[in-house]
């Protein structure tokens, strides 16, 4: 047994399109490796198309990785013996609570059905559903259990979705932009609820977001992905306060912050071609610090694992030295 709830090793996903001889391939995720400790919140941050949702979907077994391993408590999630049990342990909260609940069924049914199927309720299903509703702050629970999704607000729907997930007693929750469809004042409530549930139930979260503010608010560690690769990973405060990779700097620089005091010295190359380089660093076209060596040799993640790692030649000396 390791200390890690989840270990992701060298995960790759290649999507193919087209037919026969005209096949196009797109590598959505490239060699992503990370660990998630028990009770930890890891935020995956990146722009659309950077592979963050694809990673989430592979971890929840919604799509198959092209290669790589995902270990839950040291066991591969594709291991036959565990396949029946594992879906309960790793649950997912989706971005759109409006789409996640079937409009034809009551909230009580939506939450109760998985409990019936997995025989999770100790007393009656209804009792357990009421308990779950109370846990996520949908009180008085009696008022909510027989409501249909259209009768409750977006924030309440997201709470119901979380209640449904909690019913299966998961240990890892993968949350894909859980608040981006909600109003900000409601979103912060959902984040607070998730933080409280983590304390209460010692849950681990993998939080997918594009908002650095909420990543900092929620997460212990932040992993920044660009073009399917991890470019930086580290303690949340360190990554936000002292970003190393030029892409992380660009993200921070671009996030609205009216209270910003110092003007970061980063030249933004924002409108370059969106095609990716065939070799070398994926960020080279947009990087203000690009050198010849960035253009030819692909760059490894420098630094000790699970501490601070950066995929940038600028930090080769500094981080390799630390490693030694």
């Amino acid at each position: 047994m390791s200390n890690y709830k989840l270990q992701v090793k060298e995960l790759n996903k290649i999507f193919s399109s087209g037919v026969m001889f005209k096949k196009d391939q797109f590598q959505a995720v490239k060699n992503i490796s990370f660990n998630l400790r028990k009770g930890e919140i890891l935020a995956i941050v990146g722009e659309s198309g950077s592979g963050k949702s694809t990673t989430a979907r592979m971890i929840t077994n919604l799509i198959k990785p092209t290669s790589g391993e995902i270990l839950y408590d040291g066991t591969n999630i594709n291991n036959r013996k565990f396949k029946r049990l594992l879906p309960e342990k790793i649950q997912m909260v989706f971005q759109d609570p409006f789409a996640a609940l079937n409009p034809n069924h009551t909230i009580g049914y939506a939450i109760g059905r998985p409990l019936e199927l997995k025989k999770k309720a100790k007393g009656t299903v209804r009792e357990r559903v009421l308990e779950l509703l109370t846990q996520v702050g949908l009180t008085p629970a009696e008022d909510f259990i027989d409501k249909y999704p259209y009768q409750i607000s977006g924030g309440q729907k997201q709470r119901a979705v979380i209640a449904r997930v909690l019913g299966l007693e998961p240990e890892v929750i993968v949350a894909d932009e859980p608040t981006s469809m909600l109003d900000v004042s409601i979103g912060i409530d959902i984040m607070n609820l998730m933080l409280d549930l983590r304390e209460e139930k010692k849950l681990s979260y993998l939080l997918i977001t594009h908002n650095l503010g909420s990543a900092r608010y929620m997460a212990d560690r932040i992993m920044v992905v660009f073009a399917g690769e991890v470019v930086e990973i580290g303690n949340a405060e360190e990554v936000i306060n002292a970003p190393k990779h030029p892409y992380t700097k660009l993200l921070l620089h671009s996030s609205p912050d009216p209270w910003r005091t110092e003007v970061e010295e980063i030249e933004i190359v924002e409108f370059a071609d969106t095609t990716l380089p065939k070799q070398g660093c994926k960020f080279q076209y947009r990087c203000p610090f690009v050198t010849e060596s960035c253009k030819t040799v692909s760059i490894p993640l420098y630094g000790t694992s699970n501490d601070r790692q950066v995929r940038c030649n600028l930090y080769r000396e500094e981080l390799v030295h630390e490693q030694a």
Partner: protein
Amino acid sequence: MVNLLEINNLCIDYDSPRGKVKAVHNVSFTIKKGEIFGLVGESGCGKSTTAFGISRLLRPPAQISAGSITLNGQELTHLSEAEFDKLRWSHISIVLQSAMNNLNPVIKIQEQLIDAILAHKAMSAEEAINHAKYLLRLVDINEERLANFPHELSGGMRQRVVIAMALALQPDLIIMDEPTTALDVVVQNGIIHKILELQKDFGFSILFITHDLPLMLEICDRIGVMYAGELVEVTKREDLMEQARHPYTQGLLESFPPLKGEKRRLKGISGHPPDLVTPPDGCSFHPRCPYAMLQCKQKEPEKLHDNKGIIACHLYQEGGHRFEQLQTTSEGTK
């Protein structure tokens, strides 16, 4: 500075089977020439409805039930459709939310741009093409892109095209309704800077609508905060950054996790926005307000004008706890 747009006691209702929905209720504000004015609030607070009211894009069951809108001294609410059409693009234009999806997918960029230009201004086809090229250059897009279909452009580029279209006839006022909401932060930042640059060059006014208060604080000169169809606070950017006055604005600021400072638990705003068919008595924010007092439940707060702006909250009325914070000057009083 001269007022470009003046809105007085604007009311917009939606007829619904359950009764009138007061989507916008007694909203008054002004936008000066060359000013960037922001309207911020959560979904359903009436900010887009206000924008649609100004640009006459309201469709039944929505209608302006009272109030006046004047642009350059001209009353807009009395104009016929044909008269208003003359103002579109040339005096007032609008960039809609996820506008990049509003380009016709089967028509080339060039034709869409030229169509908009020619519909509102007499010029030769050649002049129109040159003007279209000029517009694309303004927003940093290669003019060769005119021959592309919208799907051949990225989301950010399409949004730039739409902004270029809005600029086509150099209007006095551009309404931007969440122009960057669907975009990544890096792309958003690029577009926002482009907008600010163009605004400086051409001097038009912007009514900028978003729910993203930090973004708004970065770019707007003055900010109006809407809640449940009412404008509860109007302040200058600097004043809002220093101290938000209305409890709702304070709550809204508390809802955005900051990028720096000590990590602490944010409270947000408890509860949820009211049903606009049956809004609560008194101040519509009182059920969610941490400072709610007896009179908040009974009486609608007056909109007080002082030299910082407008505030509609009982805390600042005579006898309220924060009355002394009101900085009334003789000219500010109304």
